[in-house]
């Protein structure tokens, strides 16, 4: 068996078919994770009774278990719940009609939410308390103050951590192959097995992931530069 560089190109082209699936899982789980993370972070920061305890339990459980476990628990557990409810209300809906991709997105959103809640919490805590006091003093309500004053500044400081989370979710999305979602990793396995050229196929997949990661790093760097314009000082 010898290394066949020309096959890498063949593999690469076939991997592109799976690129949208990988991007879809990543974007959905990051977006949903950011929403969940923000709600969880606020519940904990404002010590909202019941909700903050639930939020803490969620974060410690999800961060304390592997991402693969979340996927498997959702994949095997959610149908039981859904079919149970459908049976109770007499609906003809069955979990079999839910696309596999949806299970991956739900599971990874739960994963991302827990990790991102810590990123959001740190970002909010990094904003000077005087900022929200000033917002209150000009007459803003707390939601207005959070939206207009705290979040934009928190986002600017959390960008490096957020881009870490996005990269983590991109790479983590490969786990979806365990429930037969054809993302880049699964596609690599398919081309590899068809042609009996595993190393070339996985090397091509690795390069594709590397390229995507560099792209995310660049975008986050650019955003960081833009969003932190206000902190640079010097003359305008």
């Amino acid at each position, binding site marked *: 068996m010898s290394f066949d560089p020309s096959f890498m190109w063949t593999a690469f082209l076939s991997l592109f078919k799976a690129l949208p699936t990988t991007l879809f899982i990543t974007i959905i789980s990051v977006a949903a994770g950011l929403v969940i993370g923000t709600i969880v972070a606020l519940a904990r920061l404002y010590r909202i009774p019941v909700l903050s305890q639930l939020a803490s339990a969620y974060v410690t459980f999800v961060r304390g278990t592997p991402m693969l476990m979340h996927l498997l628990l959702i994949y095997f557990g959610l149908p039981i719940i859904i079919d149970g409810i459908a049976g109770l209300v007499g609906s003809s809906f069955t979990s079999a009609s839910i696309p596999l991709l949806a299970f991956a997105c739900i599971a990874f959103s739960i994963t991302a939410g827990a990790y991102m809640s810590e990123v959001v919490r740190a970002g909010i805590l990094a904003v000077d308390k*005087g*900022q929200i*006091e000033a917002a209150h*003093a*000009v007459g803003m309500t707390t939601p207005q103050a959070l939206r207009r004053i705290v979040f934009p500044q928190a986002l600017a400081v959390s960008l490096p951590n957020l881009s870490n989370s996005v990269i983590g979710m991109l790479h983590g999305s490969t786990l979806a192959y365990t429930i037969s979602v054809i993302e880049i990793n699964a596609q690599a396995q398919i081309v590899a097995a068809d042609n009996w050229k595993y190393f070339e196929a996985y090397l091509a997949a690795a390069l594709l992931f590397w390229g995507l990661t560099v792209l995310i790093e660049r975008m986050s760097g650019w955003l960081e530069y833009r969003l932190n314009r*206000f902190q640079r000082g010097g003359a305008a």
Partner: protein
Amino acid sequence: MIQLEGIRKSFGKQQVLGGINLTVQKGEVVVILGPSGSGKTTLLRCINYLERPDQGVIQIGNQKLEGKHPGRSEIHRLRQRTAMVFQQYNLFKHKTALENVMEGLTIVRGVPRDTAAEIGIEMLEKVGLGDRLHYYPSQLSGGQQQRVGIARALALNPEVILFDEPTSALDPELVGEVLEVIRRIAEEGITMIIVTHEMGFARDVASRVVFMDGGAIIEQGTPDDIFQRPREERTRQFLRRITPEANYSI
């Protein structure tokens, strides 16, 4: 008119305000003096509920708030009658000078953007920053930032402006420009309550001086009353410490 009745506040076991009564008439400039830890900043922050008093009544105009847990909307309405200038300026860091001044107008008062911009420019010109409209706080000196803070308060046209040690964080050479701006707006008849350590300024600008110590008002009166003829021993002690007489020889 502002009326404070029996304002009490403790942090843990430490009592900071022990039942303060204070009335401020429209157009008055009241300067609160006192040693650090006397509760003057806490009192000021109770007026707009940045600090919740444990007990007492706060009345501004015809709106009355009582005790520790008034409704959220009541606090919100009370705050709209006031504006505050902070020791650390607390300008919105991600917004330019003009945006800082406009923010309260557009978001809270619902003023259209172009009207708000007009008011904003007018206020920034008033504090001498007409040429710094689009600068971020990080691009301004402490004195300039504090003047933006004053413009932001003025723009809201509040019933009272609360100044919390507005020059304490400034380099000495920048104190003058800020005091000058406050002095100028004091002449326009805006009601102000000022906590400060600048004695000369207090004397100049105050229509009434309130001296606080240990969470209580010890005495109050015109600047001349307090600075020339203090009745209370504690006031005298404080003034001696803050304006040391030349008891040395060269």
